[in-house]
């Protein structure tokens, strides 16, 4: 009996009248109005920027400084842009480029995250490989292209290899950084509570590194599309880049530009999807670092 008495809740209970925690304040609703107005203002500014860019484009076109074969008017591009959306050739090219980019990205994740975790938790290996990593990440991957084309030909495999060797670095570096950067207070906590190695790895080091690794993956995702298109432009491998380059040499600049815009959109959408996924699975991180607490 005396035992259960020992653990009955103490008299000190948090005062319900005092705000405890980030409970929503009742006056928060009042700010909904200005918030929406700010949002509308933001959209207006974005529209204004777009109009301004189109205006400058049209002025450049109208000045006649560049031949219309180089700078087509934006309405031509718009027509091509819409036309591509219903063109099966475009969709095949998009699928080809996306699959190369995503396979390269997936390989980078499969290699970069485990290797990064390993290097992050073994300082000796990290120090001895650091110069290699520094070299690798500053290496211009496109310079590899001629060698790769010679070795593998202008093929899908070659494209995947080049994408991989371009985007594995941000993932690797971010993961290493995340695995190494454990808050000293957390390190002390783990030590003083005698958390065993394996548990520490899975419950502390890994979740700690996750947001960093995911940031690396997001950077890598945009870069993977960029590199895939770049490789296709230079080596005329089938895909968006290949079609783009061919449109340019065939004197269809509006079509080429439409492809360029689609390439950009693909990168943007991919980034957005990853951003949403990150918020879904690593929401705690944004809440912790996002301030507001």
């Amino acid at each position, binding site marked *: 009996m005396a035992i259960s008495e020992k653990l009955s809740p103490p008299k000190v209970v948090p005062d319900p009248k005092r705000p405890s925690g980030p409970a929503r304040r009742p006056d928060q609703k009042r700010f909904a109005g200005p918030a929406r107005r700010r949002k509308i203002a933001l959209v207006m500014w974005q529209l204004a920027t777009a109009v301004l860019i189109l205006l400058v484009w049209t002025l450049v076109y109208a000045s006649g400084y560049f031949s219309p074969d180089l700078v087509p008017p934006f309405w031509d591009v718009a027509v091509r842009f819409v036309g591509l959306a219903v063109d099966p050739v475009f969709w095949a090219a998009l699928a080809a480029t996306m699959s190369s980019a995503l396979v390269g990205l997936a390989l980078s994740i499969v290699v970069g995250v485990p290797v990064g975790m390993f290097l992050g938790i073994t300082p000796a290996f990290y120090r001895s490989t650091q110069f290699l990593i520094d070299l690798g990440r500053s290496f211009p991957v496109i310079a590899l292209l001629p060698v790769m084309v010679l070795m593998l030909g202008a093929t899908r495999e070659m494209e995947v290899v080049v994408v991989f060797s371009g985007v594995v670095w941000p993932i690797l570096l971010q993961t290493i950084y995340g695995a190494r950067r454990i808050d000293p*207070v957390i390190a*002390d906590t783990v030590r*003083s509570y005698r958390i065993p190695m394996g548990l520490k790895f899975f419950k502390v080091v890994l979740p700690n590194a996750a947001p960093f690794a995911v940031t690396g993956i997001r950077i890598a995702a945009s870069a993977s599309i960029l590199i895939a298109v770049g490789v296709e432009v230079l080596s005329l491998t089938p895909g968006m880049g290949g079609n783009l380059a061919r449109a340019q040499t065939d004197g269809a600049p509006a079509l080429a530009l439409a492809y360029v815009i689609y390439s950009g959109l693909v990168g943007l959408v991919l980034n957005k999807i990853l951003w949403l996924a990150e918020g879904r699975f690593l929401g*705690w991180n944004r809440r912790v670092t996002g301030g507001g*607490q």
Partner: protein
Amino acid sequence: MTTVQNLDRLEERQARHTLSVQSLSKSYGEGADAVEVLHELDVRVEPNEVVCIVGPSGAGKTTLLRCLAGLLPPSSGKVMLGDQEMTEPLSEVGVVFQDYSRSLLPWMRTKENVAFPLQGRGMGRSQRMALAEQCLDAVGLPAVGRKYPWQLSGGMQQRAAIARALAYQSEILLMDEPFASVDAQTRFDLEDLVLDLRKRLGISIVVVTHDIDEAVYLADRVVVLSGHPATVVDVVDVPFGMDRDQIDTKADARFTEARRRILNEIRH
């Protein structure tokens, strides 16, 4: 059933060992650049005692606490738990850090945080969750187990950190400036929680603080550190026993006297 079992265990953990440091010195750096922070300290924490360590900032209070926790090896002298020398963190000693917002893991719910050290001991999930629940209850947080630490106020986070130390079933709790960054009212509540836990669970508690009022209010003995390197300049016995009150105790003439004595020692 499991509940009763856990409570039995918790009672078993009631402080039995004396935590002490014997002529402990600590220096940082090496050779001619070495700076001695603590010099020949002798401090004892008897079972079920609350000992507060006060001193001006930079006096090496946190260094001493880290030595007591087994996180920092002393340069000379010994840290003893009973007759055993401590060379690493031991499960008899739980630590509550000053920076609660960083010591709770943000990717775990509060209850999982409290139960986490038990997982390291190989306790089954349902059992450790039940114990975590109990310990959250014991610190006055019955309903927040499902929330993440960053959804709690500062005072609640520090309660959760205390619950984690309790769940670990330590018999000695080390607290480093535990209430330095919460508001005054929360601070009083948490001070009373500390006294309450000592009384109900029979654990020993060491609190490092720079607040002399807090030290005298909580402690059976106040250890005063001062100087460079820091030495124990005084040990003040506080005669208020287990039951204390924020108003009456602090108005007591003996409280004022102890306070004056410590303040004079720290000023010099």
